[in-house]
């Protein structure tokens, strides 16, 4: 008797499980066919960093203080600045990041004294060579402007 009870109960548990799957067939599809369709990225999404463009100056506000460079755990950032006139502030003339080493922790953005760094929404970042991961932020800003 015990064996028959086991068989009936076990068989019923399999049917109950199958019923969950069968009901699921008639529910809407949850996946998106990615290369043909895109999802909206969240506003907080952390892509690699880029310069914020300020409307007052129409440019970035980087004074090449090097705080981001010193805080970066992976030495991703290289920044150099120069003074164009004797009394003017220093401005970044060179700003490179090596994205292949970046862990997107956001310490550079959090510690930037002029708030000129922000995260971009870039997520298609696979590339063929290591050099493709090196991004010139000043050039990127000029191209987007």
């Amino acid at each position: 008797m015990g064996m028959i009870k086991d068989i009936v109960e076990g068989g019923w548990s399999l049917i109950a499980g199958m019923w969950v799957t069968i009901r699921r067939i008639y529910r809407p599809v949850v996946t998106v066919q990615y290369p043909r369709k895109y999802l909206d990225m969240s506003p907080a999404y952390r892509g690699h960093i880029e310069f914020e463009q300020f409307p007052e100056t129409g440019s970035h506000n980087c004074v090449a203080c090097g705080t981001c460079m010193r805080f970066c755990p992976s030495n991703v950032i290289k920044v150099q600045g120069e003074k164009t006139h004797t009394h003017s502030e220093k401005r970044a003339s060179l700003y490179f990041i090596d994205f292949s080493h970046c862990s997107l922790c956001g310490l550079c953005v959090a510690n930037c004294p002029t708030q000129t760094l922000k995260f971009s929404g870039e997520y298609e970042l696979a590339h063929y060579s290591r050099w493709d991961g090196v991004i010139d932020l000043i050039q990127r800003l000029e191209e987007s402007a």
Partner: protein
Amino acid sequence: MANEFLEPITEQTFYLNMGPQHPSTHGVLRLFLKLDGEYIVEADPVIGYGHRGHEKMAESHLYEQFLPNTSRMDYLAGLIFNHGYVAAVEKMAGIEVPPRAEYIRVICAELNRISSHLLWFGTYVMDLGGFTPFLYSFDDRENILDILDRVSGSRLTYSYCRFGGVSRDVDDEFITATHQFVERLRSRWDDYHNLVTKNVIFIHRAKDVGVINRELALRFGCTGPILRAAGVPYDVRKAEPYSVYSELDFEIPTGTKGDALDRYLVRLQEMEQSLHIIEQALERLPDGAIKAAVPNKVRPPRGDYYFAVESARGAVGFYIVSDGTSYPYRLKARVPSYGNLQVLTEVLPGTLVADTISILGSIDIVVPEVDR
């Protein structure tokens, strides 16, 4: 161990390497098994393939710079590791965290715990041969990742907790999305139980398999669901309440026998308790600042400190020695999976090879966390 290979074979046993590349070890773990037919005589987990030297790396990094490393130890519960490390440094430096930040941390940590358990649920059942529940649990987990992506900007390695608070405030959309998720997951329990918990094949694969009793779990320093499944109601959130857990009402689910089925049931009940915690925390979420004023470089006073939190797999502790500079003198992470993994040496002998998959899966290890 190397000598054992060189000895002449006089007995009827043989050695089998399970891993380092094996789909059911979920990472680079090698189980060195001595077999007698299909029965295991000896088992030795060989670890260290994924060693990255996180603890040593801390000594050459600022306290802030070590933050991204913490979520890369246990990538399935990264936010809880963030929380543990950040809370340890806050304790060292005496930083007061605003209440809103503490509540946000608790909500996000509990969401992260559920996502970790859901992933475990899917992969464990997949190891046992059921592919469908894996897809269902990943569908639910995707909701959590979307919610956490909205606040932290990342899906897996969050670096969300910062010294003195969190990096980004939550908005109304986060709160409604979290409420919706809580309802959604509650409505899914029936499906999960019908698909897996009541399934006769699953019960046969999990019941009375890999019994880790109370004495064994305590001897090996197991924590988390393994210890609770053995009947010990130990949870850091209750035993040494940190953050705002002392204000929240929740229970610690425990098992009786400590077999794989008990561990499975304890984790499912824990997810329900986490939902309960999230609901309470959302209700009480106060207004105010999300970050205290903290200097750019934290310089904790000289001394040694320890702080533990409860991750999805057990107690995570950070032991940090400070020499008064902005670099840690020494950092030691006490991770739960390490102790939980070592118990295999006692549990596996005498079991079948096929049960190894079930036992290893039910322990729920994350190998990068063991190797660090």
